[in-house]
């Protein structure tokens, strides 16, 4: 009995047996079913359905993108460390915000072609080239964030400053004077701080630890310039 029951998995005592050595003793008869069902886990089935979005209605598509953008806006307004902005980046939000800012800021008062606020193109270029430069800077310093993720974060964090611009526009409808200016200054400063905090919460982790200040300073300069443009806006 002991001989018959040689343990196949004991290489030290017996000589190694060839693999599947016992298979030749099995005969496949008609009774053994060789068919069945392969069940796949739920998650990949959903992914398979997602990729065929061609058949859904346009409203579904638009609402899905709008909801994604809206969710990111919420993340910016209540910044806590989360990966949503980084993981599912998109550039719709930054585009909308940038165009809004540029449209509202363009050509504030001018009695002269040269003086006056920025043109639409100047605001657009400052925002996009500023964001690209900051992204390149952080990548050159050794940060491990991808190009578009960083653009996404920087663009979405302009949201508080856009809100500040809308508030300033409303405040400017009232009587001009020093109180007017103080209110606008206060609003812009608060929103500037909010933007910095929000973008730092998302970007700081991706930088090497002894270079964080080097990577954050350009962000500070960027939002400072945008705040300055908002503060000096006079219709």
């Amino acid at each position: 009995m002991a001989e018959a029951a040689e343990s196949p998995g004991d290489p030290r005592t017996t000589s190694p047996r060839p693999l599947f050595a016992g298979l030749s003793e099995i005969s496949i008869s008609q009774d053994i079913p060789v068919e069945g069902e392969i069940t796949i886990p739920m998650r990949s089935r959903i992914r398979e359905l997602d990729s065929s979005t061609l058949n859904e209605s346009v409203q579904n598509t638009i609402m899905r993108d709008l909801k994604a953008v809206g969710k990111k806006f919420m993340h910016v307004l209540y910044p806590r460390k989360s990966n949503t902005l980084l993981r599912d980046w998109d550039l719709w939000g930054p585009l909308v915000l940038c165009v809004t800012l540029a449209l509202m800021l363009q050509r504030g008062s001018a009695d002269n072609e040269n003086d006056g606020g920025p043109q639409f193109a100047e605001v657009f270029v400052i925002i996009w080239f500023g964001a690209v430069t900051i992204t390149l800077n952080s990548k050159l310093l050794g940060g491990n964030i991808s190009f578009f993720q960083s653009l996404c974060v920087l663009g979405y964090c302009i949201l508080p400053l856009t809100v500040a611009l809308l508030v300033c526009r409303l405040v400017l409808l009232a009587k001009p004077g020093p109180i007017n200016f103080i209110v606008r200054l206060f609003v812009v400063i608060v929103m500037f701080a909010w933007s910095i905090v929000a973008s730092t919460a998302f970007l700081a982790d991706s930088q090497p630890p002894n270079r964080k200040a080097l990577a954050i300073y350009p962000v500070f300069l960027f939002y400072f310039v945008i705040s300055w443009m908002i503060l000096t806006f006079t219709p």
Partner: protein
Amino acid sequence: MAAADELAFHEFEEATNLLLETPNVTTVSRSDQRPPEGHVAVAVGPGGSYGAEDEVESDKTALLQEEQQQPGFWTFSYYQSFFDVDTSQVLDRIKGSLLPRPGHSFVRHRLRNRPDLYGPFWICATLAFVLAITGNLTVVLAQRTDPSIHYSPQFHKVTVAGITIYCYAWLVPLALWAFLQWRKGVRERMGPYTFLETVCFYGYSLFIFIPTVVLWLIPVPWLQWLFGALALALSAAGLVFTLWPIVREDTRLVASVLLSAVVLLHALLAVGCKFYFFQPLPLEHMAPTHQNTPLHPHMVLTPTLPMPTTA
């Protein structure tokens, strides 16, 4: 056996002392299996004077530069090597530019022949924006005392400031470097600075103008000129002390012409910025009739002094 004593591990005291002094220096451990030709031994030389270490350091820098040029200029890591600085190093370099000392070249002493592009680029950007913003702020402050002055955001000044500062910080070092390369044959001992080192010390020398420009908000004219002169003196002194080791071996004529040209250009920049961005305020009443084309911000190619519209 005497051989065992020779085989015992001997601590290199001078090396550890040097490491203690300069903790940021890259060192190579002997246990690396890589071939030694690209590496630099910690040079043990006479301790105090930097003059005697010139040759050793120029050998070191030659080796380091060879090593740095190995990634091609089309790769990203080539440019990453110019941003290989920590926060503390950048702050240290800024401090070094604020307080120039005679006999201590900025490139040798602070950069340790490892230039970076982070400092020059962001110092120039900050200076350009600060110039435009404070120039605008003076109009705001003046308006509070004299309500007849009309305030306007003057955004075109940002463009002008940016172009001026960046052209200065890149074209002047290019010209200087080209000139020094041309005169290379005259010098025996010192190799010239590389282009990046030149750009680097020019960029860091502009840092002192940032607080100066902010201080120019104070509307007292003689105080503004005092601050300007101080900043110019410190900045130009830094440039001269850095260039002196290279230039002193040249003929007297060339040396004096070069140094005075450098100082003069620097002074021109400072005075030009003062006049253009901080115009004396009665001139605001006469709106200058620039008949520039609608493409005006992009057609300003040369940083010129404004035509003085004296009454």
